[in-house]
């Protein structure tokens, strides 16, 4: 039994680099990007709005697993494109494209829900559109969308395990490795607990943020 953990713990730590790495990088890039995409989706320019809408539709309408496969393997079949993604780049691209779409829709909903009076008051006070968005609209939107964003963030932790399809070793793969070497199920239980711990920490953190926004009603 001990030898199982002798192998499991170092491999899990290695795997965590991928699990946490994909998680953080995806969030850092997707969140700001999604605000931009949300605004594009709400653009008065019909073409911009439509194209963005199609992108969001595709990313939300197909499984992330499929997107990973397509971005890494599928590009090979498209002759026009002159390059192919490396394994880790493909992961980042797929995750960012996917989560940006989901976040964008959440932000779009949040922005639309803001009372138009806020924008009118800003207009009448002579504030520029950008200043209004950054200082008046966005802070209020963030408070409103935090729960939904939090949900997606928790989902993202679990989605990181999909990197297996490109042969990349996250903590779930570590479990599989050890499990197969020692013919035991225990590594999966261990990694399951790790996921639970990560989720618990994350939930606490997200709740803290939500509470910070409760300084006003």
């Amino acid at each position, binding site marked *: 039994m001990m030898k199982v953990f002798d*192998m499991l713990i170092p491999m899990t730590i290695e795997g965590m680099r991928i699990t946490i790495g994909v998680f953080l990088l995806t969030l850092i890039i997707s969140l*700001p990007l999604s605000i931009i995409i949300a605004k594009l989706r709400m653009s008065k320019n019909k073409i911009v709005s439509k194209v963005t809408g199609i992108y969001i539709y595709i990313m939300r309408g197909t499984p992330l697993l499929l997107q990973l*496969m397509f971005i890494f393997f599928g590009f090979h079949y498209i002759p026009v494109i002159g390059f192919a993604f490396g394994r880790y*780049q493909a992961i980042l691209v797929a995750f960012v494209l996917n989560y940006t779409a989901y976040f964008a829709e959440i932000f779009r909903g949040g922005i639309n829900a803001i009372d138009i009076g806020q924008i009118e008051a800003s207009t009448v006070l002579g504030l520029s559109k950008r200043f209004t968005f950054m200082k008046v609209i966005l802070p209020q939107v963030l408070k409103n969308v935090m729960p939904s964003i939090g949900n997606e963030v928790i989902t993202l932790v679990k989605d990181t395990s999909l990197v297996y399809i*490109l*042969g990349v*070793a996250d903590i779930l793969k570590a479990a599989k490795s050890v499990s197969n*070497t020692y013919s*035991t199920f225990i590594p999966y239980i261990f990694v399951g607990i790790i996921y639970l711990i990560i989720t618990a920490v994350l939930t606490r953190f997200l709740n803290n943020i939500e509470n910070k926004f409760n300084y006003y009603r």
Partner: protein
Amino acid sequence: MKLSNKKSILLLLLLSLIIGVLSGCTSKTSAETPVEEPNAEKTTYIVGLDDTFAPMGFRDEKGNLVGFDVDLANEVAKRWGVTFEFQPIEWTMKENELNAGNIDFIWNGYSITDERKEKVNFSSPYLEVSQLLVTLTDSPINLIADMKDKVVSTQGESSALEAAYSQPGLVESFKNGELIEFPTYNEVFNDLEAGRSDVVIADEVLARYYMKNKGAEKYKVLEEDLGSEEYGVGLRKDDTELCEKLNATFSEIKKDGTFDEIYSKWFSEN
């Protein structure tokens, strides 16, 4: 205001990440370069494998990549004077990885089948393995005929599965006419031990490794089996030269006894 400092740092981070990703995209790492030059000039080959497949290619307690296939491949690399890099892949994507040029060999207990022959080139076979039927020691099942109306399971996407379906009427004779599939043999044997499955069909190599780990006395291997198959190395269809070279080296290795050394290291039970 504090916010503008934080924001600009974040923005910078964002930009550098995006730039990093984009610049990385334009050049695949050397490990991923598709084979374009003639084989004679290559000094590095990529061997694709599922690194969780004990005992053919898997991780030991220190996390090192070990296994029968690993040793065999390294022997070939030694004789060619080149480097073999081992790239872990998802097994279900193996042909995709090969054809995309991410790997040069599928080398992982890859059973030679007619179906697969349509997609890849196979080297000459280097190992013969049977599809075993395994029960618990005290099971009343001794013959294939005894498997009628019993609960049978195996690993999904495996040669064992194919072997079962290739026998007309066999799967239909099982309980509910179904052959239960699990993702790995761990779950398959688990089901056997739990008493939910009466008999399992398993690749010999995997089965013996599992049983060795758990204590072979718990199990009974039936005399009859569902046929045998051969393992070969998968190559791209147009890599004919490479394939021939590999076959030649396999012959050498078998003739001079190196193969037997490697074999006895991993399959001493047999």
